[in-house]
């Protein structure tokens, strides 16, 4: 057996560690531990000179085991494994002790913190002796990408990848791609028409030879891992043969049943068979099965008679499509917060209290009022109030700032003044105009004569106390700059409602095995340095499913996810985890519990020489350890996390110093 020659390196991390832990003393202590031949402390171990210390000691002192005590292994374990490998050792002969997050950052008492650091280092030294060299393997990367969500984020990501001539499966839940951006009228701060900049992209997506578009479809199941995800897509029955439908709209005209249009935010009706909006991609009709009188009650078929192309197919069934992809981009977007829960704002109680998306449809030339801002009774408003932070920056609803509301409120103020000459009142708490051209837009609106009132609106009431207030909606707030209660009678109120996570975000997270933050949005791998990756390898997030953001940021993020996916495809292989499970066939009973518990379907029970035993598919195993825990005989072991290693570490932690 080879002689164990361990090198221990204690990182100062500037003053992050050294400010609390006596690093010199820890290094001195570690130097006396059995098997340790060299122990050093250094200001920044992750720097090149720090890594060189390790490499030099391997060469010059014959160090064959390495322990670095520094920050979280999430941060720099890969760095030091690489250094160990560069020095000529197997990278798995390395052990990381976290004395920053687990020690210096959470303790004030220097002596106790130093003692704890010693304990952590001792445990790491004890464990590293037991490490075995492991072989890192490579597997081929399937050169295709699944994009979930066909809003601006998903479309941009899909186009970037497809333009690189790689295959994309774009899955959209609604009958058309376009997302929320297709509902917007104009976009801040340039006021260019949303549809004008969006529809060319939609068309490109629809016709791209490298994009396979599945609308009215949902991802139902995802298995496998980076490089080879297996995906089941449910293509919902739209009861219309897409290949025959020419999008003429005759069916919708003849459909005798009307329901509120989702696209028009309920401000207009659509047929039960419908094309959501004029520029829809694909331009084919869909029957809303839930409301279809023929499908529900067996009588009608008016659309079938109207369709000259013979595209109606009431026999159509949901279809399951299975695809394999190397990476997944999640771009599922957001839901608008329902302000009706803030009862004092009177949404749904008062006709002329609207949400932002409703107002978008009013100002849109193709919308239900053909671009006229009208009250429910058909008059033009003489005064409009904009209420900021509805459901945002409010711990009763959402603590975060929704980021886009200040800017779209300014846009609405401009449109209201331009289209109606109404007096406009903005009730804000703080104006947050941080993007390119945003402050300038704010400045422009001030010039246009918008009234800015600093105060969070307390209530909206029709209870008039003066003649002037009669027949109006009265917005009540404190004008906090004047220190006076203010009541502003207006004709129309627009509630700048928060952007919130999709109602089914939890379920999507479960399907993809990605986590959500406390605010309900999907969690990024690192908020600053890895903002579009998730902790699950090969799955990326773009746009408002990660947090509220505006169109420029969403597009940039989508492009980032495409670059990530293309870089994986370009490399062509994935590195497989080496610390995976292994079965001692001599004691395996073949009970199959490992097979039941594995989230990656790695184990399977097979017959070997007439005996049923568990066999691990090394390409699928992620080394999570669930099988080792459940195994009743102890036949399954996780390499690098063997019982011997873990117990040695625990023993070292619990014994007296």
């Amino acid at each position, binding site marked *: 057996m080879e002689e164990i020659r361990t090198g221990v390196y204690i990182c100062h991390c500037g003053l992050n560690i050294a400010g609390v832990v006596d690093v010199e003393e820890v290094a001195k202590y570690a130097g006396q531990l059995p098997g340790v031949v060299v122990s050093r402390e250094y200001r920044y171990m992750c720097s090149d000179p720090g890594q060189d210390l390790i490499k030099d000691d391997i060469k010059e002192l014959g160090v064959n085991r390495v322990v670095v005590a520094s920050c979280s292994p999430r941060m720099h374990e890969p760095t030091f494994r690489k250094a160990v490998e560069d020095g000529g050792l197997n990278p798995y002969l390395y052990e990381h002790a976290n004395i920053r997050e687990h020690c210096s950052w959470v303790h004030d008492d220097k002596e106790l913190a130093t003692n704890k650091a010693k304990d952590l280092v001792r445990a790491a030294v004890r464990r590293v002796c037991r490490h075995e060299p492991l072989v890192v393997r490579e597997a081929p990367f399937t050169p295709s990408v699944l994009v979930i969500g066909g809003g601006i984020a998903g479309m941009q990501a899909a186009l970037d990848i497809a333009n690189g001539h790689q295959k994309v499966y774009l899955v959209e839940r609604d009958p058309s791609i376009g997302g929320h951006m297709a509902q917007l009228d104009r976009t801040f701060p340039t006021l260019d028409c949303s549809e004008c900049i969006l529809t060319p992209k939609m068309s490109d997506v629809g016709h791209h030879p490298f994009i396979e578009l599945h609308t009215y479809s949902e991802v139902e199941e995802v298995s496998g891992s980076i490089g080879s995800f297996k995906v089941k897509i449910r293509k919902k029955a739209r009861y219309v043969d897409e290949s025959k439908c020419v999008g003429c709209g005759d069916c919708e005209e003849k459909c005798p049943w009307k329901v509120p249009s989702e696209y028009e935010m309920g401000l207009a009706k659509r047929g039960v068979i419908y094309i959501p909006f004029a520029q829809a991609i694909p331009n084919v009709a869909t029957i809303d099965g839930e409301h279809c009188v023929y499908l529900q009650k067996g009588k009608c078929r008016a659309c079938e008679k109207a369709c000259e192309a013979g595209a109606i197919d009431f026999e159509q069934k949901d279809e399951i499509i299975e695809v394999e992809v190397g990476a997944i981009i999640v771009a599922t977007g957001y839901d608008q917060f329902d302000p009706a829960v803030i*009862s004092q704002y009177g949404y749904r109680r008062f006709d002329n209290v609207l949400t932002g998306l409703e107002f978008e449809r009013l100002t849109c030339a193709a919308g239900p009022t053909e671009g006229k801002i009208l009250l429910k009774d058909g008059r033009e408003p003489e005064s409009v109030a904009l209420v900021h932070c509805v459901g945002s*920056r409010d711990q009763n609803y959402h603590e975060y700032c929704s980021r886009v509301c200040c800017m779209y409120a300014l846009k609405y103020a401009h449109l209201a003044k331009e289209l109606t000459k109404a007096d406009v009142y903005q009730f804000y*708490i703080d104006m947050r105009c941080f993007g390119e051209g945003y402050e300038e837009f704010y400045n422009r609106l001030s010039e246009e004569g918008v009234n800015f009132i600093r*105060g969070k609106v*307390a209530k909206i009431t029709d209870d008039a106390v003066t003649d002037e207030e009669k027949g109006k909606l009265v917005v009540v707030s*404190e004008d906090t700059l004047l*220190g006076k209660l203010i009541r502003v009678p207006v004709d129309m109120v627009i509630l700048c409602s928060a952007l919130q996570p999709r109602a089914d975000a939890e379920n999507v997270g479960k399907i993809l095995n990605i986590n959500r933050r406390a605010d309900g949005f999907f969690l990024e791998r690192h908020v600053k340095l890895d903002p579009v990756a998730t902790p699950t390898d090969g799955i990326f997030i773009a746009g408002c499913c990660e947090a509220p953001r505006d169109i420029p940021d969403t597009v940039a993020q989508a492009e980032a996810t495409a670059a990530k996916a293309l870089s994986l495809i370009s490399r062509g292989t994935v590195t497989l985890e080496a610390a995976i499970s292994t079965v001692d066939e001599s004691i395996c009973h073949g009970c199959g519990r490992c097979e039941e518990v594995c989230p990656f379907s790695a184990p399977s029970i097979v017959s070997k020489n007439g005996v049923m035993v568990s066999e691990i598919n090394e390409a699928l195993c992620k080394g999570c350890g669930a099988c080792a825990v459940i195994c009743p005989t102890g036949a399954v072991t996780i390499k690098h996390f063997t019982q011997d290693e873990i117990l040695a570490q625990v023993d070292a932690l619990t014994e007296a110093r």
Partner: protein
Amino acid sequence: MEVLSPYKEATEVILEAGGEPLKLCYQCGLCTGTCPWNMVRSFLVRRIMHEAQLGAVDFGSEDVWTCVTCKACVDRCPRGVEIIDVMRALRRAVASLGIGVVPDALRISAKNIAGVGNPLGEPPERRNDWAKDLKVKDFAKGTEVLYFPCCVPSYDPGVKNVARSVAAIFDRLKIDYGLIGTEAKCCGEAIRKAGYEETFQSLAQNNIDLFTSNGVKTVVVSSPHCYHTFKAEYPELGGEFEVLHIAQYLASLIDKGKLKLSKELNKKVVYSDPCYLGRHNHIYDEPREILKAIPGLELLEFPDARENGLCCGGGGGRIWMDTPKGERFSDIRVEQAAEMGADIIAVACPYCVLNYTDSVLSMGKAETMQVKDIAELVAEAM
């Protein structure tokens, strides 16, 4: 020009007196817009928070004593600032440190409570005189329920009937209940909100010792203020017993079929949610269930009911202070009730009884409008 400089020492005094939550305030002004005072006069809650943040509070101002602790602002505050705690801290700073002036009426009530254990200054030995002719037994070990009526029904001739109604109901239903000896003192809820922390501590300790030594397991109270402090504040001081407001107790008896209301009351009744039963303790349904169980009674609702209910003006020690005509919330309520055509304003709090009765009388509506506690209505309907 007058120049303001932050006065750190004053901020520290406020923080130390329990004003810690004020740090969270981001000055949106929602509290001011929500506060009922701004229907009748200006009261800038937000500005007080900011003055406290900077230590620039005018401790001599009446604003320190204005808040009725109705909790409307706290429930809506986007930062969850416990504004009532900040108001209480300002008052503590005045009452205990002597920076500023305590209003006369409050000072006298505080002195009475500290001296004889009730705000009215009545002799302690007469606490149970309201029940003299009713032969209610003294609470003894093993008695099922302690009835604790609150100082107001115990001493105030105009409100005694609330306690007497409870006794009548309990007697009819043969409930095993008793009154605790005259050593009982004011629960201390309101005087604590008025800034007299030491007085509260001594009252609470007295009552906890008394209840514990008598083996009290269940207390039924008529006042939401007693309910609140027994339920939310006494446990921290070692007082652990089941606390039920009379509305909860009666509603559960109705629910179990033990209490049947048979006499018709063909009146329109509007129920006013007491702040300490509603917003402070989320009890909204039980009083309404009781009223609905009275045959013939037509239950009306104020437009601002339940979570949005308007305060009577009596919380936070305001019950002892004078509120000028034109600024009384109870006047607004009585006006609303009259417009709705209500015959009776039903309440479930002795302070509400006092304030609404006062408003009905001073507004000349005594001929057409009555104020009744729920217990009174139940006793009459049995």
